[in-house]
């Protein structure tokens, strides 16, 4: 037993040839967020606070697909969504369709704590944000040149682009451009076994206006209960169908699988190239499986293990989800 934390910046077809100038800032952000999360856990902050603060940090970073840096809808706009869940109480909050709220994850938490509801979306969510006085910015604040470029490429290729780490080439041998990347998330457990999960995203490049993905759907992209906390990333439509986050916990509870076994089982059952997740258990275990080329991720445990990675770790005895 001990605390543990894991976070991700999206799973997808991340090319091994990712240039240094695109890789370095992403890794630096993962490191920075991991440090923040670890410091908070060491200071005995509740996991619910920890996952929120880490995801806020990831949202504020322009290099990940959440908050600033969110990918664009087909109309060139940003529609952000997020979800947070408390493993002890199963309390949760979710938001969708945000265009001016700087930290969607914090608004999701306010929905959980300040309304009788769990999920608010679009105009209603924006109105609630104003009532609550959260930080808002003009929609243009969230839009980055990179994402304008991605949208342009996706429209030219006439596809809903999900892999944002590389432009879609006309004759790309990648799959149909449907391998998803994007979404940030964090899961944490303290040394009393309290669990929490948080996920946030801008969604899919060139998505239809009004499209909701897996992130704000409890049990799909985000879940936490007394057994584990899970945050998923990948192709939203596949994650919803497979109720990924809930299934990890259900396998532990109903079938007695360990965290690692349950997570691996779930990831394996989703079509290849479509999913990754981070999860921690009440016992302080961590796992970060994915069936995509890579997943931006980081984790640390009280026992001293820590890892920051993008692709599967080399097989020199250390698997990407080992705990020691």
């Amino acid at each position, binding site marked *: 037993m001990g605390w543990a934390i894991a976070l991700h910046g999206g799973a997808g077809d991340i090319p091994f040839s990712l240039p240094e100038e695109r890789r370095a800032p992403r890794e630096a952000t993962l490191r920075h967020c991991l440090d923040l999360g670890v410091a908070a856990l060491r200071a005995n902050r509740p996991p619910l606070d920890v996952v929120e603060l880490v995801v806020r940090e990831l949202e504020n970073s322009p290099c990940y697909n959440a908050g600033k840096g969110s990918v664009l809808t087909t109309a060139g706009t940003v529609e952000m969504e997020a979800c947070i869940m408390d493993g002890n109480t199963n309390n949760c909050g979710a938001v969708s369709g945000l265009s001016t709220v700087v930290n969607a994850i914090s608004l999701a938490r306010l929905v959980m704590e300040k*309304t009788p509801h769990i*999920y608010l979306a679009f*105009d209603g969510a924006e109105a609630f944000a104003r009532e609550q006085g959260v930080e808002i910015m003009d929609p243009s604040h969230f839009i980055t040149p990179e994402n304008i470029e991605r949208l342009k490429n996706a429209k030219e290729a006439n596809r809903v682009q999900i892999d944002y780490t590389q432009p879609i080439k006309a004759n790309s041998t990648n799959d149909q451009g449907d391998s998803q990347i994007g979404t940030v998330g964090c899961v944490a457990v303290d040394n009393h076994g309290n669990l929490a999960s948080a996920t946030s995203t801008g969604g899919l490049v060139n998505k239809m206006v009004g499209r909701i993905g897996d992130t704000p759907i409890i049990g799909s992209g985000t879940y936490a209960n007394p057994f584990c906390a899970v945050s998923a990333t990948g192709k939203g439509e596949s994650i919803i169908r497979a109720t990924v986050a809930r299934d990890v916990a259900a396998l532990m509870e109903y079938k007695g699988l360990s965290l690692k076994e349950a997570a691996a089982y779930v990831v394996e059952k989703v079509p290849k190239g479509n999913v990754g997740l981070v999860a921690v258990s009440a016992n302080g275990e961590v796992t970060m499986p994915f069936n995509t080329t890579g997943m931006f991720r980081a984790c640390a445990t009280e026992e001293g293990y820590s890892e920051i990675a993008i692709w599967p770790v080399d097989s020199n005895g250390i698997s990407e989800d080992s705990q020691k």
Partner: protein
Amino acid sequence: MVGGWAIAVHGGAGVDPALPVERQEEARRVLVRCLTAGAAALRAGALALDVVEMVVRELETDPVFNSGRGSALTRKGTVEMEASIMDGRGRRCGAVSGISTVKNPVSLARLVMERSPHSYLAFDGAEDFARKQGVEMVDNSYFITEENLGMLKLAKAANSIMFDYRVPLTGADTCRASAGLVADVGGEMQMMNGLPISIYAPETVGCVVVDSAGRCAAATSTGGLMNKMNGRIGDSPLIGSGTYACDACAVSCTGEGEAIIRSTLARDVAALMEYKGLGLQEAVDYAVKERLDEGKAGLIAVGRNGEVAMGFNTVGMFRGCATEEGLMEVAIW
């Protein structure tokens, strides 16, 4: 009995024990009509997915239940509907939320599943999609009934003060200063979703079917919670919460949306079967008993073997089922 088609429908869990008899009869008639139509289609070899859509369309169109016409109202007095549909074969799914002008949200959900690259569309984007698909659209006022306008007033009042709704209101809307609690025979206030049961509009309609080929499908549709915040999304459009279908079963839930979401109720029934090896009714009972905590909800389910199961921890659930063996029953309590 193994095999054979089966169908179950619901018109919402959480029924006022003092509901007038004519209202109960009216509800029963609608349920019987829907079951009969569904059973006839199944006898003729229709697919599960088509039957659940057809039956839920019926329920949406009839103003008796809280979906489509007759939907509960938002705090602004408007209607925002949501629905989802899932095909157990392949677990394809479609969902919509924030629908205000589409006559049959469940059909729009199906179109999202079949004609868009996504699984879930909401609000303006969903309405745009609907227009492009040429589905039947009406003014928002079409969905609003006099009765629900009245209920909204009561709900607003109840959110601040409890009162006895059976006493006729004098004036536009009043809360009597000497308001007492509405009590049932047991002397306890029946509450659902923060409202006394007397003014709580049962949420949601749903249908689950297993067809003669053993394919399962589920669909759920609702106007949501009376006096809800605009933009509030409940369990009905959320796959795994209000609706779920896989090879083994199909489930549709109703009741306190937030409790259903928290417990991912529909997925849990299937997970209990798949991962814990429970039978359909066992899984339904376990889910209702163990997963809801303080929450009030109900659900209907069918299994690939032609079984039907229902469970609820509320006072009543409008429901009915029919099987190939000839069973047909409708119940409220």
